[in-house]
């Protein structure tokens, strides 16, 4: 009886987070599509609340802080619950965390749309009160997960939990530093911006999605991860190297040269943990290709693992001064941002949802629809990233040649169009994803819906 109640609660927590994540995905994608088409038709939708500069931070906050944080945390609760073999320490706190995050995201959307911002400092534009609500949500969820893991009956602490704990240990420190008033002014802020922008990606989203994948992949394939040792190597490598490379976002800025050089060189070190995890995932898949071939969850996990290695390698290379000089400030970076945040983190997240949620709710979605989601997303992303990469190189070469700025704008117009098309396909794939998630809803929701229908009006 008790066990059934625990199972129902875990299911409710996980599904509530994942459903919220889908809402922010749809919203953030809509904003992304508007942004992309505005760069093709700049006079379209000339409305204050939808002006390009107002909604760009709404796009990034909805997708990074909303979609990714919520989806990753929802699945993290599931992984923790299953590997610790005990119920979540406090379901109430999990729901409180969800409410705080959704509240912060809504407040952030409203304030940014109205132009209330701390300035174009990416992913920390929210004014302090909004950020505090988000931070409290993060602390609560971290504490809840930590306490669940501390009081577990099983002796092992599976590697996934290391990664998840690490994400929740880093986020509060990171967030605090990002909002410290002491560094809000002057060139010191450039150092903090680079540090924050990188670490939020590398030590919040990355460890969570890695932790989830280290669990989802063995579950999907019904076999252990290839190497536990490689996982531990990736864990410490990730923590140490990722912390040090933020300064590569502002190469040639008036910040210390040694700091920039360290960041560039340590980026090379990142290749170790990155390829350790990518390799570990691929070697786990070895021998299961026949199964993966028929399983969209496997397609997402396979492509996500590959794009993790590729996007990170791209990142390492673009930090080097001669390359950075050419492609920094161009759309090349936008290509990299989506290659990594979408191709790596989001693809693995989609894969993990398709692998884990049906096992939780015992309801799946039609395989054909999951396949449509995959192909739309992959083709869309391929168009997006190749268009932006070509556009970026074209911009860099144009600027180097000394041609007038506007010439590079005209020259890349076709690539902006291609990106808008690719981005629209990605957004369309998210509608399919949302529908698929609805198909996977827990019985409790269905029962409630049926009851509501039966109830006399």
């Amino acid at each position: 009886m008790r066990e059934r109640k625990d199972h129902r609660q875990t299911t409710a927590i996980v599904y509530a987070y994942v459903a919220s994540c889908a809402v922010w995905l749809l919203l953030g994608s809509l904003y992304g599509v508007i942004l992309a088409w505005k760069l093709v038709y700049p006079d379209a939708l000339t409305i204050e609340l939808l002006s390009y500069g107002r909604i760009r931070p709404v796009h990034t906050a909805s997708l990074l802080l909303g979609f990714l944080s919520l989806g990753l945390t929802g699945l993290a609760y599931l992984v923790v619950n299953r590997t610790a073999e005990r119920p979540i320490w406090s379901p109430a706190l999990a729901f409180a965390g969800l409410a705080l995050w959704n509240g912060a995201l809504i407040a952030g959307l409203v304030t940014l749309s109205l132009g209330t911002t701390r300035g174009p400092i990416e992913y920390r534009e929210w004014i302090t009160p909004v950020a505090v609500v988000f931070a409290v949500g993060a602390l609560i969820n971290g504490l809840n997960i930590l306490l669940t893991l501390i009081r577990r009956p099983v002796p092992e602490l599976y590697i996934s939990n290391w990664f998840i704990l690490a994400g929740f240990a880093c986020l509060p420190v990171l967030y605090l530093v990002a909002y410290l008033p002491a560094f809000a002014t002057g060139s010191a802020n450039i150092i903090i911006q680079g540090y924050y922008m990188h670490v939020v990606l590398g030590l919040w989203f990355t460890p969570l999605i890695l932790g989830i994948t280290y669990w989802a992949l063995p579950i999907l394939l019904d076999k252990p991860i290839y190497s536990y040792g490689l996982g531990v190597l990736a864990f410490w490598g990730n923590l140490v190297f990722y912390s040090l490379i933020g300064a590569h976002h502002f190469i040639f800025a008036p910040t210390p040269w040694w700091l920039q050089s360290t960041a560039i060189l340590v980026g090379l070190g990142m290749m170790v943990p990155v390829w350790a995890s990518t390799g570990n995932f691929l070697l786990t898949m070895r021998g299961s290709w026949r199964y993966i071939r028929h399983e969209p969850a496997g397609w997402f996990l396979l492509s996500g693992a590959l794009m993790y290695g590729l996007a990170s390698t791209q990142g390492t290379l673009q930090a080097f001064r001669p390359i950075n000089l050419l492609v920094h400030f161009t759309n090349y970076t936008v290509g990299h941002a989506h290659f990594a945040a979408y191709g790596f983190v989001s693809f693995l997240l989609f894969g993990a949802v398709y692998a884990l949620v049906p096992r939780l709710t015992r309801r799946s979605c039609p395989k054909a629809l999951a396949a449509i989601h995959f192909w739309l997303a992959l083709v869309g992303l391929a168009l997006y990233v190749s268009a932006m990469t070509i556009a970026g190189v074209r911009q860099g070469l144009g600027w180097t040649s000394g041609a007038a700025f506007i010439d590079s704008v005209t020259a890349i117009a076709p690539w902006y169009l291609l990106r808008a098309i690719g981005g629209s396909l990605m957004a369309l794939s998210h509608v399919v994803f949302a529908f698929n998630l609805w198909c996977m809803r827990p019985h409790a929701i269905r029962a409630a819906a049926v009851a509501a229908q039966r109830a006399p009006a």
Partner: protein
Amino acid sequence: MTRFAHLFSRSALTIYLSVAAVFTILTLLVAIDPAMRLKHEDADLPIAAVDAAVARGRIIYMAEGCGYCHSQLVRPALIDTPYGRPSRAADYAGATPPLVGTQRNGPDLSAVGERQTSHVWNLYHLFNPRSMVPASIMPAYPWYFEIVDKVDAPAGALTLVLDEPFLAEGKVALPKPEALDIVAYLLSVKQQ
């Protein structure tokens, strides 16, 4: 799990605390300490007195997210010579936050006040960039203007006169105070 697991911690608290400790130490090394030093060095820099209109204009520049498409950071390299001399820490003294940016969908603006010195050009460009630069992809900001019938425009006021498609037949645009503030800010962005 495997024999490897015995080599490492099984305590969730140990992992959580050691990650927090390692990360905090590295944060001190590559973020807090260098930022403190820069802050210290910058403490002696002169902070130019800022005109009230310029300060208001800067806030609107931030609110409209201009900084997502326009950097204010000139690198010490040939590729950046059109935008001015290389940026120095002094250029950002007193700036909360410094508007360095990471994208150039539009050109760098570190010295725009020296490049586009015309108040009127800037107003037309703000109202609709394509009225000045036909191939521009910058958004238009009509909400900082009042569109009135030509006959109703107060005599002597600064009015924007444009043909279709920018303004309907017989209409003119009057800049609101915010438009004047943004332009005041842009004209003030110079490299001493």
